[in-house]
């Protein structure tokens, strides 16, 4: 033991602590069960939902394979076939591959980091409900024949053609935008959780590799998803209001969509791959019974891949006629990314060579997956070469390549993870025998299904054809692929059976059946408190290296062994050295998160069908739910300032500014928001590059109004700084005055921002120039509107006595928002006002 414990508690006192903790972390029963926000429930629901969506999309794939089994088949109509493959790709990417990692992370991270909870459990719950609702909406559309049918990347002009694509494209755009919100919420949660909520002593050189990977992936989400959100906005404006962003006849360009989609789409491949490989980085050391070889090299690989993956997007666009020098840059970066990817695979091989490998079911799935992934990686290096890609583009070679990458790099490791981590759910292992049979069915079935596609593709079979004539050399390949697909599916079915079969006759095993060394194995399936007491960590594999750790944790000999005040608490520690700095109270069970998610879902669904009044009602309900959630659950002023967390340490319960988790969450959210904004501005300049005169002779918003708007926004920002400053001096009345002035200035700034394009009569449906000006102005003004809501919220907090000089978290977070807003406003109105004259 650590030697820092002075006294040993009596058994009764310990029991009393446990009862307290159990009561505080209790999951409600009956219908209220669904209002739980505990990471173990949310993670489980999230994972189960993602898995169900995966099975659904798998059935769609089988339908596609049946249709293609023989030439000239009429099992599916052409339109149904289009819907089936579009939904298959969409669901696999957006409803399975990304969410499953969020699920695993939410479930595992707290105990892996030695925390009770992630810092924003209600945000996780909100993310889950958004995801579940959006997913059901998108999947359900196929039962009404209304599913998206233009391929998972929705290329205009096909997807903007309302005659062809019907309502399906709207369902895709709005349903997925809603799910993207959930992903960004998860990213915020994970970054703050990993940086600030690690157990004391878990310095960054001690962090489990899973956490390193997840930190990088969450950062990637922040820069990858927002461009798609910006693209979705442009796309939906075109479909809903006929603003011609992608209509070449009115100055638009379909290529802009391809850029925005793939700036998201390529990093997404790595967003999917890295967490899966992160699972391998936990599994391989366990079954080699030694620490990972080359910890720092894995960090290199994760960070390197994270960065390089943003320089690859144009390799999806090699055949669009871009200048060859541009293609060459992307080709070079696509080759370079093979370096860090190779490093992580060699690290695993080295670890296995250095230890004694136990070939269990998780290792089987892991190793099999890596073998498949390497083949996919090699064909990836092939298609990264421009001349080869011109040949293989849009053929079944690509279909084979991407399935080798995704199924080998993601699905197999996920199944390995299910077999590995299942004991954390149920204290029992899954069946070794069924697992092995499932593995061989999946491994063989996969290769039988997908390997022939390389050959079919090289023989010229294009993607997305619903049938093909006989005797052009594709028949056998397709039949073999279909047979392989069913063998593969039977393996997946076996995994499902193994997970679902009743296991009550099987005895409950010990807590850590694989004898692994990382901290997540301290969690007890029956208890909801995460960890009994928050340990001090001194090793990368604490269970292996720290003698008596589990007993000491269970005996409550570390931090926060009790819940005296009846609140859910965890520790906040410093970023680099994980020194305890705050005792954080996190949100508990709540209906508000469900209300917020469902009403926001209502907004997106109503927009799909153009039900404007319902949209407004739902939007108001969302706002009300979110304000209620913030008002009752955040920045609560504690009764006492300090909390004795045990081991002779006393920590503050309330911090504000850069020390607080809320400030970080705002910063991270706004970084994502700023990326979406940058993507819109990219659109503005993109139109400038493709046209001789991008205004096409249309009047601009002038200089006067945009400059007035920028000036007023700057004044409003200055008023916010004054508000923060006088609040610090505890002049409550002056704070109110400054906030009120800021509200009025922002209101005036918003009006001035819209006055430019409005008064000069810019019609956004005529040409893309007025349309992009309107979008940039509206984006800024909407952010101004959100700024007003925040200012009024601070005013209300001040009036209600919930904000003071010492307790100013709300105001500081809002001022941080305003820093971002003022940069946005000056850039927007500066560019809109000056650029047409300058160019």
């Amino acid at each position, binding site marked *: 033991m650590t030697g820092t414990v002075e006294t040993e508690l009596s058994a009764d006192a310990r029991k009393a602590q446990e009862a307290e903790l159990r009561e505080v972390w209790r999951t409600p029963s009956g219908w209220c069960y669904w209002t739980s926000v505990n990471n173990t429930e949310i993670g489980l629901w999230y994972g189960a939902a993602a898995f169900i969506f995966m099975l659904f999309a798998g059935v769609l794939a089988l339908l596609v394979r049946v249709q293609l089994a023989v030439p000239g088949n009429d099992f599916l109509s052409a339109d149904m076939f289009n819907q089936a493959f579009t939904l298959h790709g969409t669901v696999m990417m957006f409803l399975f591959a990304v969410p499953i990692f969020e699920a695993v992370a939410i479930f595992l991270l707290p105990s892996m980091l030695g925390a009770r909870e992630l810092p924003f459990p209600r945000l996780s719950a909100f993310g889950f409900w958004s995801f579940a609702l959006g997913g059901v909406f998108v999947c359900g559309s196929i039962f009404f024949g209304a599913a998206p049918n233009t391929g998972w990347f929705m290329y205009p002009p096909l997807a903007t053609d309302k005659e062809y694509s019907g309502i399906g494209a709207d369902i895709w755009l709005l349903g997925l935008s809603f799910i993207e919100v959930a992903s960004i919420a998860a990213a915020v949660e994970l970054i703050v959780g990993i*940086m600030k909520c690690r157990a004391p*002593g878990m*310095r*960054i*050189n*001690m962090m489990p590799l899973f956490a390193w990977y997840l930190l990088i992936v969450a950062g990637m989400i922040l820069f990858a998803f927002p461009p798609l959100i910006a693209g979705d906005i442009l796309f939906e404006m075109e479909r809903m209001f006929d603003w011609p962003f992608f209509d070449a006849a009115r100055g638009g360009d379909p290529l802009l969509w391809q850029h925005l989609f793939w700036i998201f789409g390529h990093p997404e491949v790595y967003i999917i791959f890295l967490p899966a490989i992160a699972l391998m980085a936990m599994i391989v050391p366990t079954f080699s019974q030694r*620490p990972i070889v*080359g*910890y*720092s*090299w894995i*960090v*290199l690989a994760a*960070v*390197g891949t*994270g*960065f*390089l993956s*943003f*320089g690859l997007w144009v390799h999806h666009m090699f055949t669009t006629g*871009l*200048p*060859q*020098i*541009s293609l*060459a*840059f*992307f*080709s*070079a*970066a696509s*080759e*370079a990314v093979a*370096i*860090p990817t190779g490093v992580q695979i060699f690290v695993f091989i080295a670890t296995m060579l250095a230890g004694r490998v136990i070939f269990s079911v998780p290792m089987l799935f892991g190793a099999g997956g890596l073998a498949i992934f390497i083949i996919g990686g090699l064909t990836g290096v092939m298609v990264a070469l421009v001349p080869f890609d011109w040949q293989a583009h849009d053929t079944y070679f690509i279909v084979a390549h991407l399935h080798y990458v995704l199924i080998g790099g993601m699905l197999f490791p996920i199944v390995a993870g299910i077999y590995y981590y299942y004991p954390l759910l149920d204290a029992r292992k899954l069946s070794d025998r069924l697992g092995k049979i499932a593995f061989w069915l999946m491994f063989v079935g996969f290769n039988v299904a997908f390997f022939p596609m390389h050959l079919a593709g090289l023989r010229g079979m294009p993607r997305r054809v619903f049938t093909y004539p006989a005797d052009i050399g594709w028949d056998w390949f397709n039949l073999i692929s279909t047979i392989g697909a069913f063998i593969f599916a039977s393996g997946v079915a076996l995994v499902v059976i193994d997970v679902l079969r009743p296991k009550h006759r099987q005895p409950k095993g010990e807590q850590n059946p694989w004898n692994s060394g990382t901290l997540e194995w301290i969690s007890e399936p029956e208890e909801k408190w995460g960890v009994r007491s928050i340990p001090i*960590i*001194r*090793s*990368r594999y604490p269970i292996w290296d720290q003698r008596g750790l589990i007993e000491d944790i269970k005996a409550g000999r570390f931090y926060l062994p009790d819940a005296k005040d009846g609140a859910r608490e965890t520790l906040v520690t410093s*970023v*680099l*050295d994980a020194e305890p700095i705050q005792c954080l109270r996190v949100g508990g069970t709540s209906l508000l998160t469900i209300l917020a998610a469902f009403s926001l879902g209502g907004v997106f669904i109503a927009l799909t069908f153009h039900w404007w009044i319902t949209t407004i009602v739902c939007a108001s309900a969302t706002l009300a739910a979110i304000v209620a959630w913030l008002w009752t659950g955040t920045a609560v002023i504690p009764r006492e300032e300090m909390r004795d967390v045990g081991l002779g340490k006393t920590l503050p319960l309330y911090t504000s500014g850069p020390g607080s988790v809320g400030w970080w969450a705002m910063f991270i959210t706004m970084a994502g928001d700023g990326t979406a904004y940058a993507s819109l501005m990219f659109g503005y300049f993109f139109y400038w*590059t*493709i046209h001789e005169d991008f205004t096409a002779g249309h009047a601009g918003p002038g200089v006067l109004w945009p400059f007035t708007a920028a000036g007023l926004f700057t004044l409003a920002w200055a008023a916010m700084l004054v508000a923060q400053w006088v609040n610090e001096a505890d002049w409550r009345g002056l704070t109110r005055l400054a906030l009120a002035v800021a509200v009025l200035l922002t209101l005036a700034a918003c009006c001035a921002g819209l006055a430019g394009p409005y008064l000069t009569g810019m019609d956004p449906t005529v040409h893309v120039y007025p349309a992009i000006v309107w979008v940039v102005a509206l984006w800024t003004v909407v952010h101004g509107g959100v700024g007003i809501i925040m200012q009024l919220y601070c005013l209300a907090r001040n009036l209600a006595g919930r904000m003071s000089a010492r307790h100013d978290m709300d105001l500081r977070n809002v001022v941080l928002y305003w820093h971002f807003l003022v940069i946005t406003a000056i850039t927007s109105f500066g560019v809109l006002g000056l650029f047409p004259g300058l160019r």
Partner: protein
Amino acid sequence: MRLIPKDVESLWTLFTAPTIWALHFLVCYVTAAVFCAKAGAPPFSFEAMRLALCAVTLVALSGIVLSAYLAWRQWGFGSGDPPHDEPTRKDRLLFQGFATLLLAGLSFVAVIFVAVPLAFIEACQP
């Protein structure tokens, strides 16, 4: 004024070299894309653009070398071997230095990869 910055204790230094790679990549891509889209309008030739981008590449590489030097210094000039897994501030610093150094190496290679087309491609659409 000192030429070599002092030691900084921050997580962000880890990302210096990859960030330089990203900026270099963006400058190369955007410059070439705008040049080729506005063919005829820019008052300089493709050759001149290539030379300018080569200069940018040299600047980027020097930045990475500087970041590598700082990382090497943080790593104690290679005085200790990995894995750097002791629960001490010193080992944490050594780990940071080593990981940063590795990333500088990768970024250096990746910048050269991206610069290779500048050496071989002589026009927008050869």
